């Protein structure tokens, strides 16, 4: 297993956490969106992470046990929209109710903090790997 392979594992973590942050940002941005191309209000989304095999499946016993991470899919949250009585709103129904996305800003903030922490953790692993390769280079230099 090469150092660059280990770097790839940390990079997969960075990518996954960044995707999570993007999805959360989209949820926050669309917290008040009452119309979408598919019709109805925006529905909040969640990324689903999945442990992913590294290499091409021909690795050693150890390599088969180590997994990088991948975003398997982005699922749509099926929770019911929040309805509010706004008869003058262009998207109001006959009874005068408007369906708003079921986005909980506190929940999204918590997601953002979690994603940012996960990103930093993967970055820290990358720094550690760099100090290891630097130490290895010094062996040859002296």
């Amino acid at each position, binding site marked *: 297993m090469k150092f660059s392979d280990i770097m790839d594992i940390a990079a997969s973590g960075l990518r*996954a956490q960044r995707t999570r942050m993007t999805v959360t940002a989209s949820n926050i941005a669309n917290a008040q969106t009452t119309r979408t191309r598919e019709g109805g209000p925006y529905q909040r989304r969640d990324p689903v*992470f999945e442990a992913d095999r590294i290499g091409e499946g021909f690795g050693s*016993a150890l390599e088969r046990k*180590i997994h990088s991470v991948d975003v398997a899919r982005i699922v749509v949250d099926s929770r019911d929209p929040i309805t509010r009585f706004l008869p003058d709103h262009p998207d109001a129904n006959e009874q005068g109710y408007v369906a708003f996305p079921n986005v909980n800003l506190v929940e999204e903030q918590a997601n953002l903090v979690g994603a940012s922490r996960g990103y930093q*953790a*993967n970055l820290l*692993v990358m720094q*550690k790997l760099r100090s290891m390769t630097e130490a290895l280079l010094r062996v040859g230099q*002296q």
Partner: protein
Amino acid sequence: MSSFGPDAMGALQVAMRFRKAREAVIAGNVANADTPGYRRRDISFEGILEGARAGLARTHAGHLPNGSGNPEHARVEMGPRGTRPDANGVDLDQELVTAHRNASAFVDQANVLARLSALVRTAMG
């Protein structure tokens, strides 16, 4: 007196290969810190030397070499399922501490190796 050169260098090499493999395992744990149902993995130094202690005979060329100290054949220990709602068993802080300690050990070993090779070169004149 045994020579400080090849013996010590061989031992350092085994230790450093183990540290590198363990860093890869920890990197996998950190990357999967939010993967539902993921259990943390780890390898121990005892784990890679296990074959040597058991004194297994290698009776077939296809068998894995035992006691080689090769971390590629290490037994990977799986942690328990987590108590979080997504059943993830990774404690991010713990993993980062382990990653730091493990990387530091590797750096220390690399420094000793650098000193050793300088000694050998001096001895050779």
